[in-house]
């Protein structure tokens, strides 16, 4: 089988998994406690690394853009640039990548181990549908928590940018904040929320699918985990481009 057909098959499988999970989400018994546990693991658990990376990303954005802006005499716009980059692009993408690394790998490894130790078979034998019990709560949890994490990354990133601007470059916090407020529009925020919703589905479905497709013992678990992280990261970045374009058209953003 060549790579093109294999990737197409994988896209099909992953899409089917999402469809199944979506349909089963509303059937009884609903696995609400599982979903809440996953939200805790995924959302609350990822918050520290998201805050840490968000803070430093915002900081480095200021660090790099301030001198350039100053050269053009536009250093007052630092907050604008930092906020725009974060809310539109870096916040969603960075959060998605961090969550892929932390959560996508864990989901894939967990489901993969369950496959190779026959726990998935045991679950089916005991009358539980693994898609409903394992896949749906995880995708749902990502769907709910990824936008929240993204917002957290945006806010802490802007804060980090502000800290660097005020401490290293002696900007007044008032100037920084007002340029931030000037920079972000309502459409940016909407776009910044829509993206993580879609990334959540991408990460959850790829990680679950790779995990459930695991073959060949412990080595297979490693293989599917790696493959889940790599695939999900690539898909997030590629989809981000097309989403950005689509959002520009839909929300009528300035295409500059």
């Amino acid at each position, binding site marked *: 089988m060549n790579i093109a057909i294999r990737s197409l098959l994988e896209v099909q499988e992953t899409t089917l998994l999402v469809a199944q999970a979506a349909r089963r989400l509303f059937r009884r018994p609903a696995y609400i406690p599982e979903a809440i546990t996953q939200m805790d693991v995924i959302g609350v658990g990822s918050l520290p690394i998201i805050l840490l990376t968000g803070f430093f990303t915002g900081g480095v954005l200021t660090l790099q853009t301030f001198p350039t802006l100053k050269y053009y005499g536009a250093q007052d716009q630092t907050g604008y640039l930092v906020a725009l980059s974060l809310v539109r692009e870096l916040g969603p993408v960075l959060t998605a990548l961090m969550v892929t690394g932390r959560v996508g790998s864990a989901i894939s490894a967990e489901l993969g181990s369950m496959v190779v130790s026959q726990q998935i078979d*045991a679950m*089916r034998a*005991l009358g539980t549908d693994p898609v409903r019990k394992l896949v749906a709560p995880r995708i749902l949890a990502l769907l709910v928590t990824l936008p929240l994490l993204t917002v957290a990354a945006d806010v802490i990133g802007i804060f980090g940018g502000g800290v660097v601007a005020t401490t290293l470059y002696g900007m007044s916090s008032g100037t920084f904040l007002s340029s931030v407020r000037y920079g972000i529009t309502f459409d940016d925020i909407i776009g910044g929320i829509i993206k993580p919703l879609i990334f959540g589905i991408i990460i959850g479905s790829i990680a679950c699918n790779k995990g459930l497709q695991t073959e060949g013992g412990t080595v297979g678990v490693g293989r599917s985990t790696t493959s889940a992280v790599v695939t999900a990261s690539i898909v997030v970045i590629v989809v981000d481009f097309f989403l950005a374009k689509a959002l520009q058209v839909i929300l009528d953003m300035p295409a500059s």
Partner: protein
Amino acid sequence: MATTNLEVTDAAETSSTEDLQVSDAAADSTFAEVDDRERIKPAIEFRDVHLAFDDRKVLDGLSFKVQRGETKIILGGSGCGKSTTIKLVLGLLKPDAGQILVNGDDITNYTEAEMMKVRKSFGMIFQEGALFDSLSVYDNVAYRLHEQGVPEEEVEQEVRRMLHFVDLEDAIDKMPIELSGGMRRRVGIARALVGGPEVVMFDEPTAGLDPPTARTICELAIKLRDLEDVSSIFVTHEMNNVSYLTSEYAAVNEAGEVIFEKEGERLCLTNTKVLMMREGRAIFSGTDEQLQKNDDPYIKRFLHGR
């Protein structure tokens, strides 16, 4: 293969054909004389089942029946398709060709949702235990009841009863990782037996266990067969398991204790049959005595190790 068509529930059938079918079934049934018509239908039937993984043929025209209340011991070397066979019964895998019947219903083309209903009356003990390692022993055994939303007092009562049955009451709060191989296997048995399944499938339940523990597990299977009227498939390649299962029976004495007696003058066991598989095919099907007398060189080598 001469498939015996056992659709006795069909109301349109005349009594004469029914009689014919009953005697037909009786030919290879453990229960030549039964009043309960439902019992005539085999609990499990395979008809010329084929299955291949990629290019590798794993089952190559496998046919057999497990009658109600019967224990079918499946013997065969590693990789001959024993685990695959019992996974097919539960619909965990689907055959490429052939039919699989459960209680007379053809489940071959059942969807996953339909299979879920069939699985309710089955208990399966996996080769490696397959315990949920994120759940405690209690939650593992309670799994099925928790899924059905049974009230917690009832769950606890049933879990304690099942753990008592497998003699593991002390391990109730342990995690699977803390258990020995034999204990894990017994938790797997307790989990499979919750809810009183009609058919239980054991996949090499004694492999890698010390003889006394292996004996305990065989006793559990005997108890299920003789005291709980459970049909079962018992996959093994250990000959002492075969001799326990084919020569001993469980009874309850005056004091209410379960005792195990050897067959002999008083009773001759007929409810345990042996199926021998080789390369995805049944090469022997019959009683233990017939197996011992068989002079196929492969079977002889399997029984005696040379």
